[in-house]
């Protein structure tokens, strides 16, 4: 417990001082930390899920408060809470099915046994129907349910002692199974976050065609892998990269693209509108995708989206599932922007005399925002690790990943 607490405090400090940059890195750190919290948490015999949820919520609130602008933290916390709720629901359903089977074994009549077989089958069908909307880990539970029903007839001749033994064994196994299943779910989430690049890149072949010109902004690992995957499939196309002043992240992306063999052209941010008429598609990575389909991306991306709309150029957003945010832009918890230091724009030494507020003299103020918000009507297509989606479909996709109870923490 002290070890987990120190790890939490250390991660909170890094978030507070903005030392971890990028949604994917933040999401990875967060989900690994929450896995440690879950594995070290002592679970009581009753209400195991509630204890886990409370522990994850307590840590999650600290993480979200440390850096409110990084929405990936809240996304991952809500995903983990959703996993806990799902596993709890599936285990509860399986336990109810098991109890019914145990109750059925009390009768000795052959006719009754045959008749009870049908209600057991009905319960299994109901559980299977309920699980049809759940995620792949639940299938494992479904398969495990069948051996239980198969073994029940063999114990029907046992006495009361064997019945009580079976019940206590079931309880302890249920307890260990919940935490185990939750950790398995979190592990799959970790793999999902780590592998979202490959999943998105696999779809590049369907969207990038021969001799096309692609415009991109910001430095996104997802965009880089997406474009390189199309390159590997023998697509010959060119990439325009906006340089992304004042941090010039576009320079880094251009260098990587050239190293991977792509034809790359760097343009200034103000040249986006001038070059948009030659562009076939705009592809950007997102910082976050809101529930209404809006996008929070690197600064300047809204200008590119407006230019693309003006020239009828498709605007494609690549986003891993960890960037899907269940909040809306108008939620008060959402901070859409972060103002960084003006020293990235101006040399402090040369402009320090303009910063004085002398009597009668004008004053210089420098604003350096980090993000831009793109409304959903400007987005043509979202490409996530589960495929391409329309902006109007994002709320449905988000409903699959999050529980309604966790939206307000």
């Amino acid at each position, binding site marked *: 417990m002290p070890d987990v607490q120190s790890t939490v405090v250390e991660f909170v400090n890094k978030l507070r001082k903005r030392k971890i940059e990028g949604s994917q890195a933040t999401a990875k750190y967060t989900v690994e930390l929450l896995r440690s919290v879950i594995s070290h948490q002592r679970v009581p015999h009753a209400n195991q899920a509630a204890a886990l949820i409370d522990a994850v919520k307590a840590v999650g609130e600290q993480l979200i408060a440390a850096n409110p602008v990084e929405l990936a933290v809240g996304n991952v916390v809500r995903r983990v809470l959703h996993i806990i709720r799902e596993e709890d629901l599936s285990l509860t359903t399986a336990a109810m099915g098991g109890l019914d089977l145990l109750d059925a074994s009390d009768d000795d009549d052959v006719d009754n046994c045959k008749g009870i077989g049908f209600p057991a089958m009905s319960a299994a069908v109901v559980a299977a129907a309920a699980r049809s909307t759940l995620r792949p880990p639940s299938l494992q539970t479904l398969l495990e349910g069948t051996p239980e029903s198969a073994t029940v007839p063999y114990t029907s001749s046992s006495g009361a002692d064997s019945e009580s033994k079976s019940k206590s064994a079931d309880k302890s196994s249920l307890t260990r199974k919940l935490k185990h299943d939750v950790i398995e779910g979190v592990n799959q989430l970790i793999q999902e976050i780590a592998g979202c690049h490959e999943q998105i890149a696999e779809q590049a072949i369907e969207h990038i065609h021969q001799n096309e010109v692609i415009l991109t902004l910001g430095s996104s690992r997802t965009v880089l892998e997406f474009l390189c995957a199309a390159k590997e499939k023998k697509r010959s196309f060119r990439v325009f990269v906006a340089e992304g002043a004042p941090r010039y992240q576009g320079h880094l992306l251009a260098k990587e693209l050239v190293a991977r063999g792509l034809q790359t052209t760097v343009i200034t941010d103000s040249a986006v509108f001038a070059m948009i008429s030659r562009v076939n598609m705009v592809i950007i990575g997102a910082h976050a995708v809101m529930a209404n389909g809006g996008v929070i991306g690197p600064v300047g991306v809204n200008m590119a989206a407006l230019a693309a709309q003006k020239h009828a150029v498709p605007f494609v957003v690549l986003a891993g599932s960890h960037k899907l945010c269940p909040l809306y832009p108008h939620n008060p918890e959402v901070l859409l922007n972060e103002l960084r230091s003006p020293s990235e724009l101006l040399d402090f030494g040369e402009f320090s*005399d303009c910063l004085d507020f002398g009597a009668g003299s004008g004053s210089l103020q420098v604003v350096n925002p980090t993000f831009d918000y793109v409304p959903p009507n400007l987005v043509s297509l979202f490409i996530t690790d589960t495929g391409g989606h329309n902006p109007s479909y994002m709320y449905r996709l988000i409903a699959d990943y999050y529980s309604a109870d966790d939206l307000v923490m």
Partner: protein
Amino acid sequence: MGAQKKPAAAKVREDSEDLSRQRLQAILLADSFTTQFRSITLERPKVLLPIVNIPMIDYTLAWLESAGIEEVFVFCCAHSSQIIDYLKKSEWYTRPNPNLLVRTIVSHNSTSVGDALRYIYEQQTETSQIQGDFVLVSGDTVSNMPLADLIQQHRDRKKKDEKAIMTMVFKKQSRLGIGSDQLFVAVDPLTKQLLHYEECNSRGGDFCLDKSLLDSTVLCSDMQDCYIDICSPEVLSLFEDNFDYQHMRRHFVNGLLVDDIMGYKIFTHEIQSSCYAARIDNLRSYDTVSKDIIQRWTYPYVPNIDFSGNRPVKLGRRGIYRASDAVQSHTADVGASTVIGYGTKIGNGGKIYNSVIGNGCCIGSNVVIQGSYIWNNVTIEDGCEIRNAIVCDGVKVRAGAVLQPGVVLSFSVVVGRDFVVPAYSKVSLLQQPTTEDSDEELEYADSSSGTADHSSGLNNLQIESKASELGPDGAGYIWEICDSAHDEEWKHSVVPIPMDKLADITGAMDDDDIEDDIVVPPSGELKSDTDIINTDANDSYGDFEREVEEEFLSAVEKDNKADIVIPLINSHRLAYNMDSADCAGAVFYSMMRLAVKSPHNSATELYRNAMGVITKWKGVLGFYLKQTDAQIEVIMKFEEMCQESEELSPLFAKLLPFLYDKDVVQEDAILRWGEEKAGADDCDKVYLNKCESFIKWLKEASEEEEEDS
């Protein structure tokens, strides 16, 4: 189990070795040993004063932690118990598994940086706390620069040269009136070694520099010392050996620069433009650094980020930071670049611009707060005006009171109703310590600060009898301003620089620029000499003209003949080394001046006066008109006088033929003057056009003569 323990023990041993080898340490001086904030620091240490609602020491410790420092020794002198109590409650002590170890060293006898470092050296011999290089900073430093690379550079330099014992950090800045003295620094451009360090109290002051340093030296006057030093252990031993070293810069740095025997060297490092570093050493820099923090130059140490356990306030539009539970009336107007703390209430019709409001403040209705710093738990009642002031914790400003610019209200002061606090006043519940005024120039610590607690009881009794200084219901003393600092009180305050002072500073900078021109290489010097010669020449011709005029007028009064006047004018000509043409111009000028000064009622009379003067004194003028060039000079002089005088202007067309008739000016001269003027601009052809008919007549006359011959 036994096998598992051995690798763990080995790992612990390796970690211990790595920790001892790479441990980064810092010494934080929690006392500035100056009296700039005296009216406030009598009751609270300077490092605990809030800047944008967060104590100064938290900025310094947060920066040291993120810069990779692992252990900080906080040296406490004045009010050490307050600092220790604060640190114990703060995040630096209560955080589990901290990255930064904070330890305190207490000494009540130190009165300077030198005393502090000597005390640490004595402690060093007993406890060996400081291992290797360390960073020496003051507790009022606000920075976000990385230190790891700088420390590594210092260590690499130390390996090559054992005499490199310190690296100072400088920052380029072009601010006016920063409050501190202008700094002149000489640096070797190749090795970045510091060669000269001097503070000039007045702008445009001179300083001496060793001639041998001028070979390859970069001389900077736009640098600011950040007072961040990377030191080797020799620094401590040097302070121990030289017990007269008190001031870090004035004694230690200059002592090492002057001392050639030991050969110790100091190097410099200039901050990149993306980093920020500043020290709060007076009220002016307090104001400047506060505004830099609000403008986010110190990112990530900004009010809306929790970097030291502080509660972040939310950043809204126009750079307004507002706490989530601040209560603000809908008719209150909060302007840009303003910070409002937690639990603060603002009444109706308030106007708050460019200010920082702390936590738990209560601001009434129709209050104007502009360019001010209101600290915590301050009560400002209705109708008050506060401009460019600092109001400390627990102050009460009664209704209708006015704080004029530059006021500093210390803790728990009460300003009476409708009272007007004079500009630049310092108000405190404690009486002004009078015995320390003579020591102020030495910049020692307040010896009375340790006894402030004892005397506060007595002062409370005295307060009741002298409460009328701040109005009937006020409480506190208005400190008197020292006579020497009266003219410069604007320099060390949060008031914006007045316009006339700004003009003076700008003028001083212009003078500096002119002085810089004088120092240019020899070609520039020759140019300067040429300018000087030209200036003298112009002045001497004016003197000559006046001398000739005086001589001519005296001749007119005495009614002398031409034979007597000509030698007198010749003596002046020889004295001033003039040509005949110059004499002719001067004499003609005198004649025309005489004609103008004679009484006349109309242009006709002036024309007659001029003709009379020319007729009478043409002999003197003719003596100098033997050459054509001299005659052209007279015509041009006449033209020049007509441009200056409106009366003479109409006479030009008449007098030129008269001069020709009297044989003063020859035909060739007039024709040549006409030819020269033909190629001039239109504005210079005014008088040529007037004489065009006369010149035509002259040409026709000469043609007739040729035909006749």
